């Protein structure tokens, strides 16, 4: 394990992240223009989608692949459920729902970083794991939104307002929320690229390779630099709002979720690479897709909590410590 932790830390991609955190912490005026950061994140989604789709076209969905997808769906239902149960007595219920969504869903950048960590360590993984990621994005969001509506109507009763009153407020219909969840840009682009990668197969892969594969590491490094800057800024801005409990949750929960995922991966006999990615998906928390829906669907929840937890704590934890740790653990257990 020491070896892989070290190896992780001398990966230029990870070092740019660490450098970004450092630059942010000493309040450098270093800044990636927002338009560029958005471009990078779109690029990464396209690249990962195309690669996954092409891999899928090459191998098809084997039985192991179906089991991996099953594992993903189980985790996508399990994590938000037990997260909400843990949280609801400690923080306000809207925040609890939002955090449950955050941890039940996934971080694409963490997934991508794990993929390239695996490649560096010459460990294979299936294109279906990108499908697994897509499948894990939404269930937690929908659960959380339903939980929040429940809380909302209970509150409406308690405050003895007509329960119907809330329905006149804008933006509350479940239909609208589902539409937002399905059509969210990041989510849709990933699905679209996956489908295009699948449909165009090997030929499409060859055409897109120089853009999507060759310069990939460079753009990932650049983006992780920005992520580092963001993490530092987010931590500075939200210091006050974060309790010790919340911080603990953000740092311990990835380990718990990864362990549970590893259990299923072991049970289902997944190969090492797929097992690792399932762990990473379970351990990661969403700071793009989930906030994009939750800010609209659960506006009562405070970004200072759910967004800070996902971006400020869980993301850097997984990138720097989590990924090599999960890898080492798999190495021990799978042998």
């Amino acid at each position, binding site marked *: 394990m020491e070896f892989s932790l070290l190896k992780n830390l001398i990966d230029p991609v990870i070092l740019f992240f660490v450098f970004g955190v450092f630059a942010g912490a000493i309040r450098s005026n270093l800044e990636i223009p*927002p338009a560029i950061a958005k471009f990078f994140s779109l690029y990464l989604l396209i690249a990962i989608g195309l690669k996954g789709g092409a891999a899928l076209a090459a191998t098809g969905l084997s039985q192991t692949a179906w089991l991996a997808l099953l594992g993903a769906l189980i985790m996508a239902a399990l994590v938000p459920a037990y997260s909400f149960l843990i949280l609801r007595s400690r923080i306000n219920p809207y925040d609890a729902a939002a955090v449950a969504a955050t941890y039940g869903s996934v971080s694409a950048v963490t997934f991508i970083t794990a993929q390239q960590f695996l490649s560096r360590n010459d460990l294979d993984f299936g294109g279906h794991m990108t499908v697994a990621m897509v499948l894990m994005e939404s269930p937690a969001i929908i659960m959380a939104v339903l939980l929040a509506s429940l809380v909302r109507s209970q509150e409406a009763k308690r405050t003895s307002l007509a329960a119907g009153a809330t329905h006149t407020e804008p*933006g509350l219909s479940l239909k609208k929320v589902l539409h937002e969840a399905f059509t969210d840009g990041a989510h849709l682009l990933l699905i679209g690229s996956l489908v295009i990668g699948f449909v165009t197969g090997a030929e499409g892969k060859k055409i897109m390779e120089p853009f999507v594969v060759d310069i990939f590491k460079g753009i990932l490094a650049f983006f992780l630099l920005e992520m580092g800057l963001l993490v530092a*800024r987010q931590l500075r801005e939200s210091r006050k*709002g974060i309790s010790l409990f919340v911080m603990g949750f953000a740092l311990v929960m990835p380990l718990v979720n990864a362990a549970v995922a590893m259990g299923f991966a072991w049970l289902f006999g997944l190969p090492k690479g797929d097992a690792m990615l399932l762990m990473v998906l379970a351990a990661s928390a969403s*700071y*793009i897709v989930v906030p994009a829906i939750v*800010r*609209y669907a659960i506006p009562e929840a405070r970004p200072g909590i759910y*967004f800070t937890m996902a971006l400020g704590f869980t993301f850097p934890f997984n990138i720097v410590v989590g990924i090599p740790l999960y890898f080492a653990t798999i190495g021990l257990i799978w042998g």
Partner: protein
Amino acid sequence: MNAVMTSKPVKRIEMVLNQDVIEEIAQKLDTLGVSGYTVIREVLGRGERGLRSGVSLGVFQYHLLLLACEDVQVEPITEMVRPYLKRFGGMCLVSDAQWVIR
């Protein structure tokens, strides 16, 4: 004064609006008969909900909408916008201005 003939008094409304609702509000402005508006995209802000830092990831983005309208349109507009402000955050200011007739 010459200005009397070349400009008319209007209300100047500026709102800071959540990215999720701006299209909906723009549509409602249409139905209220508002003749025009201008949007300044991607403003940063601080309000009750604290600083917003997800901007470069495209989350927690606000836009600023500026419009000039007749006095009588102010109330319908602000009444339409108020529930959005309440629910999704933002603010709305109304002031006086002269519209230069073109």
